[in-house]
């Protein structure tokens, strides 16, 4: 609902917001829910060269026609009640200049906590970052050399704008003990425009963004130049900043050091951080608050998701940072800690970041470098999978080789025995008997070697692509291969599959599978009744399932289930099975990412289910 100006009466609490808004030391505007400007701070007009009449009541998109798409998206998110969104953007100003800025968006809520619009402020990146860096450097120098004076404390009640100073604080600022003082007075103390701006900025950031501060400022007290170090920590209740508590202390220092801060080096450093080709952030050690981020980080991760991730893992992070060896020079690797963090990136994708951190500023903060290692991790896990698969294959091959060797060796021994025997044969009947056995042995050996050749063929076959094959063509081929056995056993095959149905497979494999399964059924048929095999299909989400059902002797899968598809574990009783057929079938299905299963009951026939994946 848009709020027009006429509804803003004295009784409306928002009017207070107006005065407060006008005086804000930042470039801030309030938008209603339709993103029309309701009010702006004086800074907004001054820094962006606008008049009230030009902007109040107008849509933000009208005022900044080139606003980025991201910003449009984020505005809609802010209206949903989200706070502290930051968007990097460029705006064209009326004086023709282009400013690189960060939009800060927060839901604007009324006293009953309903969202009535968006609070929008503009941060001029270069200036602010530079200031912060100057201060960071100043602080370092000061803590290195300064003599620590007494520390005073203070507390600021945000709602009632009440400032309470401890006695020591009053002493430091040479304020009479019984006098009350407002924050404005205190700011006025500094007597320097730069310092004032910094204090105002710090205050604003603390109240609006929950940012703690720690700055050292030049201050003139009783004619002497001093440096005051002040720390402020915002305290929140129900998502609103209620109080700021802090300390002040005088660092007996000459002013010249402060002036030095404005040297080129700091500017250089600041831009180094901001434009570094790695995602970086400065984080408060005790609270996990994010104090600063650079361009790369904002693009790769985004402050919001970083904040969530840090808060979530703060304890772990603190632990690993505390493990850092405090001894040794800064260049030493020992003062770095590295760990992993799972973060949603700017596109909402879950990614894993490697994180390196180093403590800064008296160990109150740490500098983090984030490195996206999602790709590496998935590559590693792919490699692990590949190795596992290969291990399985090797195991299969060893198993297979072992069985083959065993079988072939048995055959070879038989030939040896046979030759011995032939040497001793005396009559014709023994000779013909031995020849029978010889014939049997030879057939057996051939079958073994055929299976072996098939296995070698498997490796060759897999290098080509699977094809869409008409199932019935291959059932016909299998029937041709087994025509002798089928005739002899008087087997009936009922094929329920239509002539047009196809599955994806390697032709060689499909023929083998059909042949093996049908020959299996013939082998284990009941001898007292004709064998009936029925073949049908069913299509599921992932597979085309081929059913081969028979009315044979069946088997007890409870006992033999695990052996069914193993090599050399024929289930036959005195049959000439080498236990290769079903092993091959399983092997081939594995190679095609399918599977083969069996259901059976002793004496009641069996059903073999072969699962061919659709792709």
């Amino acid at each position, binding site marked *: 609902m848009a709020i027009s100006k006429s509804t803003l009466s004295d009784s409306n609490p928002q009017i207070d917001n107006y005065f407060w808004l006008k005086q804000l030391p930042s470039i801030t505007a309030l938008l209603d829910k339709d993103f029309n400007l309701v009010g702006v701070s004086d800074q907004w007009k001054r820094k962006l060269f606008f008049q009230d009449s030009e902007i109040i009541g107008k849509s933000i998109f009208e005022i900044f026609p080139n606003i980025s798409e991201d910003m449009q998206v984020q505005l809609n998110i802010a209206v949903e009640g989200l706070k502290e969104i930051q968007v990097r953007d460029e705006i064209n100003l009326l004086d023709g200049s282009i400013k690189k800025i960060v939009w800060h968006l927060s839901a604007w809520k009324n006293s009953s906590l309903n969202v009535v619009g968006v609070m929008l402020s503009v941060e001029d990146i270069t200036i602010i970052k530079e200031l912060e860096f100057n201060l960071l450097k100043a602080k370092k120098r000061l803590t290195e050399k300064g003599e620590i004076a007494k520390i005073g404390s203070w507390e600021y009640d945000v709602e009632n704008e009440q400032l309470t100073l401890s006695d020591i604080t009053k002493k430091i600022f040479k304020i009479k003990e019984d006098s009350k003082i407002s924050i404005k007075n205190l700011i006025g103390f500094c007597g320097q425009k730069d310092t004032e701006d910094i204090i105002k900025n710090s205050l604003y950031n603390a109240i609006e963004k929950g940012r703690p501060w720690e700055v050292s400022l030049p201050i003139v007290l009783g004619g002497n130049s001093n440096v005051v170090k002040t720390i402020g920590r915002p305290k929140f209740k129900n998502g609103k900043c209620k109080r700021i508590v802090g300390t002040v202390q005088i660092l007996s220092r000459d002013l010249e050091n402060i002036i030095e801060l404005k040297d080129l080096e700091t500017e250089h450093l600041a831009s180094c951080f901001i434009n570094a080709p790695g995602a970086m952030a400065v984080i408060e050690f005790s609270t996990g608050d994010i104090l600063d981020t650079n361009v790369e980080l904002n693009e790769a991760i985004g402050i919001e998701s970083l904040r969530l991730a840090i808060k979530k893992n703060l304890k772990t992070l603190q632990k690993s940072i505390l493990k850092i060896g405090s001894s040794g020079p800064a260049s030493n690797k020992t003062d770095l800690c590295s760990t992993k963090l799972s973060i949603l990136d700017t596109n909402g994708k879950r990614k894993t970041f490697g994180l390196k951190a180093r403590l800064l500023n008296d160990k109150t903060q740490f500098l983090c470098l984030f490195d996206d290692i999602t790709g590496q991790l998935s590559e590693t896990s792919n490699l692990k999978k590949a190795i596992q698969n290969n291990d399985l294959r090797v195991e299969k091959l060893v198993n297979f080789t072992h069985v083959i060797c*065993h079988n072939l060796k*048995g055959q070879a021994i038989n030939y*040896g*025995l*046979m030759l*011995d025997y032939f040497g001793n044969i005396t009559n014709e009947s023994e000779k013909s008997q031995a020849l029978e056995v010889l014939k049997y042995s030879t057939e057996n050996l051939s079958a073994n070697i055929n299976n072996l050749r098939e296995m070698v063929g498997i490796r060759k076959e897999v290098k080509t692509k699977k094809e869409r094959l008409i199932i019935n063509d291959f059932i016909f081929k299998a029937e041709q291969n087994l025509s002798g056995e089928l005739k002899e056993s008087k087997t009936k095959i009922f094929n329920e599959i239509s002539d047009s149905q196809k599955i994806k497979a390697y032709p060689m494999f499909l023929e083998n599978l059909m042949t093996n399964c049908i020959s299996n059924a013939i082998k284990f048929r009941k001898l007292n009744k004709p064998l009936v095999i029925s073949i049908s299909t069913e299509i599921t989400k992932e597979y085309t399932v081929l059913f081969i059902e028979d009315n044979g002797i069946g088997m007890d899968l409870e006992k033999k289930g695990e052996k069914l598809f193993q090599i*050399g574990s*024929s*289930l036959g009783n005195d049959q000439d*099975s080498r236990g290769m057929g079903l092993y091959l079938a399983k092997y081939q299905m594995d190679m095609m990412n399918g599977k083969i299963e069996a259901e059976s009951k002793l004496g009641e026939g069996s059903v073999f289910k072969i699962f061919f994946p659709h792709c």
Partner: protein
Amino acid sequence: MDKKLKSILLLDDNLSTNFFHKKIIEKSNVADLVLEFRSGTNALKYLSQEGIEQPELILVDINMPVMNAWVFLDKFSKLKNDSKIKTTIILLSTSLSPADKERADAIPLIEHVLLKPLTKESILKVIENIIEKKTDERSIKI
């Protein structure tokens, strides 16, 4: 007379192996009866019949499909029989793996493990040992 056993049972899934082993035993003239089976199930069926005289020697192939030698021996040792005959068990293997050897050593029922193929010499040695043991036992009784 004393150099002969009453009966020997051969158990091997390979038809040819059984055939030739039987021939060797017959040629060595060390047993009155040589039985051959190609599956443990069938051998057990035969052995569990009433009134069957237990063989004095059983030669079992270790690697058989469906029921290997270990399972067969386990079942065989549980067969109830009131026969006075003590059966000697010999395992046969094409490739004697250390694991099999270890396993065989742990089973008191097994006399020892022989490498295939059987030869006249090896079978004669086995028979000799059995007969020696028998005479030892008799002399103790006397």
